[in-house]
């Protein structure tokens, strides 16, 4: 038997649990840090974004209807799947210029972060919510609820940890997510999508688009069926236009730098419902 031909992976988008190419047919080349490898990545269009939002909206009722305990199990399962692919992630991080040690370190941090947010799924409401003292024979209870469909513009570095820090808090409370990956090392986002697809995450709960955030972010920020956006991957200079676009339907927005394990990243995409309940005398 002669030398085998290389079998190379086609990196596609992750929408509604499937891996479609961009409807536009576009791709963009990503060159590895040492110039040895070129990968062609799907370049999502605004129509792909629209389909991703539609999928996220359709998946919302089922996902937020699950118990927090069950969502925690699913997030833990994602951690297991990432652990299983640790070598792949590390190799891809090295292609992007990380040292072998840093790459292994980041993969470990990303997994630990998933476990951290998995734990919060059935606990954040006890911390973010409250029993309010009122002058009357009532219990007055404030509970956080997911806002709905949340967009995430993921940062370019640290790429894997940044992706996890973007999507894990959003889905932990029961939101569904549309993630726009950084064009710097987008293969990692798609490998993460493969982990999600095998981790009992229902179709549409997380959708991942590769492409150019400067092209996609305005459509995401302006989309009236999106209820929140994490702008962590947006350069500070670009943020005011996006905030303006996001204001038309009062989206929740946030931007975090270097604070990945952060309860506020969960509570930012919840809204507080307060209920009164009679308790007698």
């Amino acid at each position, binding site marked *: 038997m002669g030398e085998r031909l290389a079998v190379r992976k086609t990196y596609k988008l992750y929408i509604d649990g499937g891996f479609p190419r961009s409807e536009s047919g576009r791709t963009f080349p990503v060159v590895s840090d040492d110039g040895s490898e070129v990968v062609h990545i799907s370049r999502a269009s605004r129509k792909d974004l*629209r389909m991703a*939002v539609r999928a996220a909206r359709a998946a919302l009722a089922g996902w937020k209807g699950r118990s927090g305990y069950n969502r925690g199990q699913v997030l833990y399962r994602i951690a297991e799947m990432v652990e299983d692919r640790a070598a792949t992630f590390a190799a891809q991080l090295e292609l992007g210029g990380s040292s072998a040690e840093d790459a292994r370190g980041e993969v470990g941090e990303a997994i630990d972060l998933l476990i951290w947010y998995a734990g919060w799924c059935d606990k954040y409401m006890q911390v973010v919510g409250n029993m309010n003292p009122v002058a009357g024979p009532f219990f007055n209870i404030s509970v956080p609820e997911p806002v709905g469909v949340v967009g995430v513009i993921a940062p370019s570095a640290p790429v894997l940890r940044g992706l996890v820090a973007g999507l894990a808090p959003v889905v932990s409370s029961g939101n569904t997510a549309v993630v726009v990956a950084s064009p710097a090392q987008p293969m990692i986002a798609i490998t993460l999508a493969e982990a999600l697809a095998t981790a009992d995450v229902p179709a549409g709960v997380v959708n991942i688009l590769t492409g150019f955030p400067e092209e996609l972010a305005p*459509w995401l920020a*302006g*989309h*009236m*069926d999106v209820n929140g956006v994490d702008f962590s991957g947006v350069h500070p200079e670009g943020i005011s236009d996006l905030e303006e*676009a996001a204001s*038309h*339907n009062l989206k929740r927005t946030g931007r975090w730098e270097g604070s990945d394990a952060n309860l506020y990243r969960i509570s930012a995409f919840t809204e507080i419902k307060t209920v009164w309940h009679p308790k007698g005398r």
Partner: protein
Amino acid sequence: MVEERVAALSTRSIKREAKMWALRAAISMTDLTTLEGMDTRDKVRQLCHKAIRPDPTDFSIPPVAAVCVYPNLVGAAAEVVGGSAVKVAAVSTYFPSGQAPLDLKIAETTQVVADGADEVDMVIDRGAFLAGDYVKVFAEVAAVREAAGDACLKVILETGELGSYDNVRRASTLAMAAGADFIKTSTGKVSPAATLPVTLVMLESIRDFYRNTGRAVGMKPAGGISSAKQAIRWLVLLNETLGLEWMTPQRFRFGASSLLNDLLMQIRWLGTERYQSPDYFTRA
């Protein structure tokens, strides 16, 4: 042949000004419909307000052509839309099956017209049609035509039960000859409901009937048309088969319920360049 022509026309891209024109035309051609066993007078009143002013935030949006309801609710609808441009259409003749004696069908039709229906949507007896009893079907349409008086008569063929394009063509011609003002695809209770190929067959029957008799009959696809994109495909088919003279609510209607909000969402998308959410449109 029919399917190929429809497939070719469905790829046509309608953009910008033409799309805006089509969306607004589609609204003005909509028979806003509610035909559920759980319909109430209040639900119908709400639907009628929506019919008159589909988007309360945009007064430039035209009213729909008609509201389409069950006989019991004609009065409730007429109370609200009376004096507006919106007509009241009542389904009649023991919709959706049409399996009743002719005198009952006539009585029902007389009643809905007396209650204020401007338009009557009758069903043909598909059982009789499929058994080859065309004389019975013709006589029933003619009798209901007479009972409906000046009201616009739409004849529902229920093409999903007719089995072949030949039968659709035959039923179309029969209904037109018996006095139909419109021929309509479906009740919405049978799947498949309105499809593009069936509509093309019916439009061609209308064209040939017009050539032979000089009488212009309207077309109403109904059932399963829920998106603006689909509606525009129907308008392309209409324009290519019967031309601009038929692109008016007097000669073309969509029987639909959720279509209206999608048309409104598309219009707002064209105006704002922001993808829209159903959260910001009234329900009917």
